[in-house]
């Protein structure tokens, strides 16, 4: 025990020394610049990420943890253009839709080869779909297809047909986000075989991932000889490594350091609106949140301004309903809740509440941001006499609470760009009383609107339905996140900027980055 | 009063190597003796001869391998009952360690009363303790002290008091004075003499201090490597020793006059109890050893006026011869030629001991300052 503690003290002093060292090295930014320049001679982009997946299969997880690493390796049938419209990538042109809108016929490009040299065929797409619709495979994608997709098959070597049970307009979005993987690798948890410009050569679980250029890539020739991802779980370590020029780009800049990082020379902090949500659910089937007045009291006394300023350093928008500024259906005119808590209103609502409970448990994910948010909110709620217990859980146990409907209030950070693009359809799932994730809210209108969102082929109709749902859920105080944080990353000025438009769908698009020409 | 017969204790030492038979140490071999009420038996011998084991067997701390202990007609079981324990009590060697160092003397003295349910109330017990404390020459003031706060002599008295609180018939004293200063020894011995007379106690005194043994002995037994080699009245054993070992012991007593000093007639060190010599255990050291001594173990037999275990008892046993030998060797005769006719002993009166510090209630001694 003493050993561990000793190590901890050592760790701290090393950290302190590192911090001191950083201050020193900041004075000599030319040294850093020359170090970066000499490092870049190998043509490799060094990326620092916050965490590493245990399972690297991009078909299994839509989280940014997995997908940022697989982004340069795999591609999907369709992709986003500069205006975030869906355009063909591996597909050869727009899909052909049958008259009853139930059968989609997709032709594939014939000039595509996998990174092992095999040609892309319809069998690969079928294998991919089979994997993500297989309940036993444990893919996160299963929720996007189950109930809608009836069957799929290869029509010929380069044509795939997908038959749905009912009109499924949202499938275009899914096909724009779902990576297509070589048929022999769809179930692999330690190998990725894609068609992208970089291929995964090797990785050390939890530590580093090494990719190199795929010379047979069908698109523009990749700019780097390779991209290496290194995991730095500690935010400060990530930042120091960037400052010292050991890496070129870091994801997940700790929000509390944003302002300090913005002032660093040689670095650029890129902040963008993004489908990054603070999932916030209350269980309406039991006390105290089954009480409308209690729920409203909690919602109006939520310290939104405190969260925006203290946790996100101002890089967030005050929260209202479930849909944020980077997402389809965003309604800036919706101002149901004040930015600063209205404690008087909350107290009068509480007085009207039939529940006598003045306490609840807030179950949050195991990350610092969630913890900070929870602490600020709890401090605010204590002003109206609510005793909040914060319970911090790792991903698995947290999800179990959600699925088992065993919570008072659930909260976690969730980035949806890799599954839903510029939207977050899953955020709404708990509001649908027919959904397995239902939080106990029952509103036929909401159920219908959510069905429209999934089924319609008309984007304007979908957006309109989303707006309506968003407003209802805010007004009924069902889903009321404290803020919509922006996505923040930082890069050295020696590489070109990340496309801000793509950050709106969570994409960094490493394959499109280049070394900046010095000047 | 106390009847001991065939007492035997064998210890098994773990074998040095796997598969070997364990080594058996015969610490005590076939020891028998008896004492009457008010009588004192002293058991003398060198360290390691089994004296202390006998003491432990007598009070039930060690279960005998064989043999019986009978007090006042009652056969004591190996697992002593509380009633068995009340009959025979122990005063252990070192007063410094005989009492719990973190408990007051009062606590220590209350233990026998509590254990045996003597004295119904706290006040009763306090009275009994107070009386006993006074009897052994301590005061109430000592009772509040921890053992470290009082002197060795006072501690010895406290230990004695504790044993006496159970009103035992027999008191076993295991080296009661060995760790005390000379001046204190005298007071303790005098106290024992007093108590014996007052209470009619029977005592078994185990000691290697021959002067003390001689002082207190009505009967005496001499032990060598677990066996009694000579047993008789105090006068017989101390004044007219017959066994070569007894003679050697008495001869080795420190002598004040260097001109009279001479080497005892025995030779060498005590033999090992783990591997005792064959035959008579004493024969390697014995000046009179013959062939038979190396082969046969001599039995303890009545030889005239006493019991002896020696093959040559007949030849060496004449008292006059012994006295002559003593004179020739320059060994002084015993300090006091205390005979049974001694009027003071006979009346149980106080006998002066050659010590100036002898006083009925001594001032607190400082043995360690």
């Amino acid at each position, binding site marked *: 025990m003493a050993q561990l*503690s000793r190590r901890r003290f050592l760790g701290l002093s090393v*950290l302190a020394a590192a911090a001191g060292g950083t201050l020193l090295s900041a004075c000599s930014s030319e040294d850093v610049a020359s170090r970066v320049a000499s490092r870049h001679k190998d043509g490799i982009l060094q990326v620092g990420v916050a965490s590493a997946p245990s399972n690297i299969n991009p078909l299994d997880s839509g989280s940014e943890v997995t997908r940022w690493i697989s982004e340069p390796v795999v591609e999907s049938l369709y992709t986003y253009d500069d205006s975030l419209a869906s355009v063909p990538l591996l597909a050869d042109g727009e899909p052909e839709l049958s008259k009853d809108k139930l059968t989609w016929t997709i032709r594939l490009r014939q000039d595509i080869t996998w990174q092992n040299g095999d040609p892309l065929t319809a069998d690969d797409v079928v294998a991919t779909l089979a994997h993500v619709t297989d309940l036993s495979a444990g893919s996160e994608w299963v929720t996007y297809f189950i109930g809608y997709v009836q069957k799929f098959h290869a029509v010929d070597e380069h044509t795939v047909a997908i038959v749905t049970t009912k009109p499924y307009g949202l499938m275009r979005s899914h096909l724009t986000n779902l990576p297509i993987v070589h048929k022999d690798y769809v179930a692999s948890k330690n190998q990725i075989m894609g068609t992208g410009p970089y291929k995964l050569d090797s990785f050390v679980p939890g530590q580093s991932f090494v990719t190199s250029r795929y010379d047979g890539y069908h698109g523009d020739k990749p700019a780097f000889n390779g991209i290496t991802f290194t995991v730095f779980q500690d935010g400060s370590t990530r930042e120091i490594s960037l400052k010292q020029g050991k890496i070129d780009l870091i994801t997940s800049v700790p929000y509390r350091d944003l302002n300090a990082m913005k002032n660093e020379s040689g670095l650029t902090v890129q902040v963008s609106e993004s489908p990054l949500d603070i999932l916030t659910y209350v269980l309406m089937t039991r006390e105290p949140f089954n009480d409308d007045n209690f729920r409203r009291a909690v919602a109006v006394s939520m310290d939104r301004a405190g969260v925006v300023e203290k946790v996100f350093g101002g890089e967030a928008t005050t929260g209202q309903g479930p849909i944020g500024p980077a997402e389809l259906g965003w309604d800036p005119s919706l101002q149901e809740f004040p930015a600063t808590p209205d404690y008087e209103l909350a107290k009068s609502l509480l007085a009207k509440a039939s529940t006598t409970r003045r306490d609840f448990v807030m179950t949050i994910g195991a990350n610092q941001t969630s913890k900070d948010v929870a602490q600020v909110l709890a401090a605010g709620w204590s002003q109206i006499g609510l005793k909040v217990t914060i319970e911090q859980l790792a991903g698995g146990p947290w999800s179990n609470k959600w699925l088992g409907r065993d919570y008072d209030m659930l909260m976690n950070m969730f980035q949806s760009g890799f599954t839903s693009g510029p939207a977050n359809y899953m955020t709404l799932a708990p509001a649908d009383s027919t959904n397995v994730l239902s939080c106990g809210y029952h509103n036929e209108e909401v159920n219908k609107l959510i069905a429209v969102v999934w089924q319609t082929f008309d984007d304007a109709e979908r957006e309109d339905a989303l707006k309506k749902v968003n407003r209802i859920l805010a007004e009924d105080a069902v889903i009321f996140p404290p803020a919509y944080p922006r996505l923040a990353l930082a890069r050295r000025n020696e590489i070109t900027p990340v496309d801000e438009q793509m950050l709106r769908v969570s994409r960094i698009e490493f394959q499109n980055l280049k070394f900046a020409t010095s000047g | 009063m106390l009847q001991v017969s065939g007492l035997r204790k064998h210890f098994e030492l773990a074998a040095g190597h796997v598969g070997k038979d364990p080594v058996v140490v015969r610490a005590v071999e076939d020891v028998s003796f008896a004492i009457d009420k008010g009588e004192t038996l002293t058991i003398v011998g060198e360290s390691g001869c089994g004296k202390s084991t006998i003491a432990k067997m007598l009070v039930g701390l060690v279960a005998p391998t064989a043999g019986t202990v009978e007090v006042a007609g009652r056969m004591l079981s190996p697992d002593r009952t509380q009633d068995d324990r009340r009959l025979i009590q122990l005063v252990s060697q070192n007063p410094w360690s005989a009492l719990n160092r973190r408990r007051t003397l009062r606590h220590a003295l209350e233990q026998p009363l509590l254990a045996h349910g003597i004295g119904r109330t706290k006040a009763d017990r306090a009275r009994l303790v107070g009386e006993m404390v006074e009897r052994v020459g301590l005061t109430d003031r000592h009772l509040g002290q921890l053992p470290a706060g009082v002197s060795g002599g006072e501690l010895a008295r406290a230990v004695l008091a504790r044993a006496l609180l159970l009103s035992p018939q027999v008191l076993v004293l295991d080296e009661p004075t060995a760790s005390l200063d000379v001046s204190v020894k005298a007071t303790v011995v005098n106290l024992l003499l007093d108590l014996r007379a007052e209470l009619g106690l029977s005592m078994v005194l185990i000691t290697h201090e021959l002067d003390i043994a001689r002082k207190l002995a009505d009967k005496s037994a001499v032990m060598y490597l677990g066996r009694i080699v000579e047993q008789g009245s105090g006068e017989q054993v101390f004044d007219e020793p017959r066994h070569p070992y007894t003679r050697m012991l008495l001869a080795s007593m420190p002598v004040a006059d260097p001109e009279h000093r001479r080497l005892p007639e025995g030779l060498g060190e005590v033999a090992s109890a783990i591997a005792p010599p064959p035959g008579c255990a004493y024969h390697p050291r014995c000046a009179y050893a013959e062939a038979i001594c190396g082969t046969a173990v001599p039995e303890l037999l009545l030889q005239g006026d006493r019991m002896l275990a020696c093959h040559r008892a007949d030849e060496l046993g004449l008292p006059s011869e012994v006295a002559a030998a003593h004179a020739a060797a320059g060994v002084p005769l015993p300090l006091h030629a205390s005979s049974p006719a001694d009027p003071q002993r006979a009346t149980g009166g106080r006998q002066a001991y050659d010590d100036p510090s002898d006083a009925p209630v001594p001032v607190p001694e400082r043995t360690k300052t």
Partner: protein
Amino acid sequence: MTTTVTSIEPAPVSPLAAPAPKRWHRVREWRAAIQGFASWLGVGCLAFFLLIATVGRIGRDPEALVTLGAEAPSLAHWFGTDNLGRDVFARTASGAWTSLLISLSCILLAVLIAVPLGMWAGWRHGKRTDDIIMRGLETMQALPMFIFVMFIIMLVGSKPIDIGPFTIGMEPRIAVCLALGFVPFFARIARAGTLVEMQEDYVAGLQVIGVKQRRILTREIYVNVMPSVWVQCFLGIAIAIFAEGGLSFLGLGVAPPQATLGNLIAEAGSQIIGGAWWYAIFPGLVMVIGILGFNLVGDAFNDNVLGSRGEAERA
């Protein structure tokens, strides 16, 4: 076997203080223990730590957001404020209190379990009971204590447990888990102490008198085993504060927003980068001072109360 008295100097008794009550012996012993610079430094550190943990908490809310963001130490906020705008002094004081409570209750509980167990094993030395107890404790010790505690906490989980009207939060659970980790440590001390005492003449003496074995164990041997246990408690508390810090550091500690020294330092580690040195320095300093205090005082008692005997019993 008869060297018992040698290490304990008999305190000279003046006839005036004659019927000295038992307690006096102890006070004298303990006062005699505080000798030398290191010991006094330890007492000073301990006093400072206890002052922060008790008086320091009065009238301060460790969870209130008092400033907009992190602020450097000032007259209003002696230790500055953290990124959420909470007073670091208030959090440090409250953290010290929580850490102290957890450590104290953990050690007390450990002693409560370990001493009877250890003494029983010592009493039944070489017999089956001793064997079973010691094998059990060895099994617990097979894992390094910290890993063992982590394992237990993982098993127990971190969600509040409701037993009737009572909710068992994280603090008692950490205390219990840490206590389990300490049981072998104290049980060994108690067993070793009992073994040594069993050899003492007074135990045989009491047996001859007819005092029941259980009574000898609980009334006589017990008082001689406990001093070395108490002394080890001081060191135990220091280790427990450390361990609680380690658990909080790994996120297995008490739930936010409750502060402990461990989670304050854990959070501070990643905040130093922003130049907010006060986050880590002050709670860290208080923790180090507390641990130092408990250690030095424990050492002083060990050296001066138990002397070489204490050494032997610990071996």
